[in-house]
């Protein structure tokens, strides 16, 4: 059977397969599997799924400050008075905020760019939420901007671009440390990761009480 066409599928089934195959990472075969799973699903579960989808489209907006996805005009992080308002962590996607929040190690605010500069795909700075970031930096009392874009070429390009724009404003610009991942073998590390790890090496603190002579 040709995976690209479903000649025997009824029109509503074909429509759902077509809708699923538009999702990122879902090919025609996966779209068919998901569709036939849905057909066997109890009606109330299907309705709950449909309601969740509609609700996301109806109720979700971008936070007016950090541009993260939220239900309210200002997200929970931006409206939390206990957050450190002198630091903004710049991330590419809303999911990156969730990842950083899971660490419980950061108390500052965020700014979501909604992408990264990708010249070969025709995505430039004007398609990202950079103007909004500059507006925030002018209005707010930010002393440190933490660049937390992905450690790949596009993320680095975005960081260098932002560094160039923001450094003249007198704000301290920092970048997340790059280096070896926990649990990885040194021999498999690529040269960029190893070079970054060497550059970012830190002195090992010796505990005087427990050290042996």
């Amino acid at each position, binding site marked *: 059977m040709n995976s690209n066409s479903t000649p025997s599928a009824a029109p509503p089934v074909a429509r759902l397969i077509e809708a699923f195959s538009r999702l990122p*990472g879902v090919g025609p075969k996966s779209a068919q599997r998901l569709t036939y799973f849905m057909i066997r699903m109890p009606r109330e579960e299907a309705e709950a799924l449909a309601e969740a989808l509609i609700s996301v489209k109806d109720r979700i907006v971008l936070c007016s400050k950090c541009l993260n996805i939220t239900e309210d005009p200002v997200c929970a992080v931006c409206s939390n008075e206990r957050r450190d308002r002198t630091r903004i962590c710049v991330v590419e996607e809303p999911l990156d905020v969730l990842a950083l929040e899971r660490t419980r190690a950061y108390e500052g605010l965020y700014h979501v760019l909604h992408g990264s500069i990708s010249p070969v795909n025709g995505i430039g700075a004007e398609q990202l939420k950079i103007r909004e970031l500059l507006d925030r930096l002018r209005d707010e009392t930010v002393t440190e901007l933490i660049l937390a874009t992905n450690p790949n070429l596009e993320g680095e390009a975005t960081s260098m671009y932002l560094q160039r724009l923001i450094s003249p404003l007198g704000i301290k610009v920092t970048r997340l440390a790059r280096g070896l991942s926990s*649990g990885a073998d040194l021999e498999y590390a690529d*040269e960029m990761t190893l070079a970054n790890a060497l550059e970012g090496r830190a002195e090992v603190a010796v505990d005087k009480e427990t050290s042996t002579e």
Partner: protein
Amino acid sequence: MTSGRPNLFTTEAVVLRHSDLGEADRLLWLLTPQRGVIRATARGARKPGSKLGGHIDLLCYVKLSIREGRELHGISQADTIDAFRNVRTDLGRLSRGLNIGELAQRISVEDAPAPEVFRLLVNSLGWLATTENADTLVRWFALRLMTITGFKPELGACVDCGNELEPDDHVFSAERGGLLCPSCRSQGSDALHPASLGTIKVLRHLARSDFPAVESLNIGAEERRQIERILRSHTNSVIGRGVLSSAFLDEVRDWPEVGPVPGGIRAD
């Protein structure tokens, strides 16, 4: 090229484009010497700690073990030969590296050998890491790429009548693929770009020389502008549409260096 197992081959490659695939995989467009552009997946490459992830970033020159597939190949091992660190840590060099990488990718054909294009790209990325004349490198690369692939613009004779050109100012037609003599320039309705005698001399020098011989060439501002317009219109005409990364290159062209460049030299 082929290893012991029939469906596994090893190749050198430069990573020219990527996109996310599935949960944590990446789809790569690779320029290889023996097969031209191929597409291959790297499973789990977006996860921290992936053995592949750090080796297969854009513009990395790598050695790969690849499982042959019907539609997409799969990368099983990757080792970096050169990550061109000075290129990726300087926005100016990076914008030019992406520009020549895109040109190489757009002009190459899938699964057709491209050893000369591959070698040209690897050498050029190496030069880009150290040269002080990154813009001259981009112009030289574009001309050399067109020459290798059979799209060299005609710079010696009139592209229409074939008569040798007098040593004078002329015009360039991207549509017709070269310079036009005074009597042929009025025929046709295509866009014509001015090409002064100085511009023509520089273009001819770039076309016949290796990069080290033209690296320190001092090109005047007006000649630079004319060469830029001529080469861009010619490459766009060959490729069929604009080179996407040119907009970013234009934006950061005159920016000072921003990233740390260990042992590197400031781009022009």
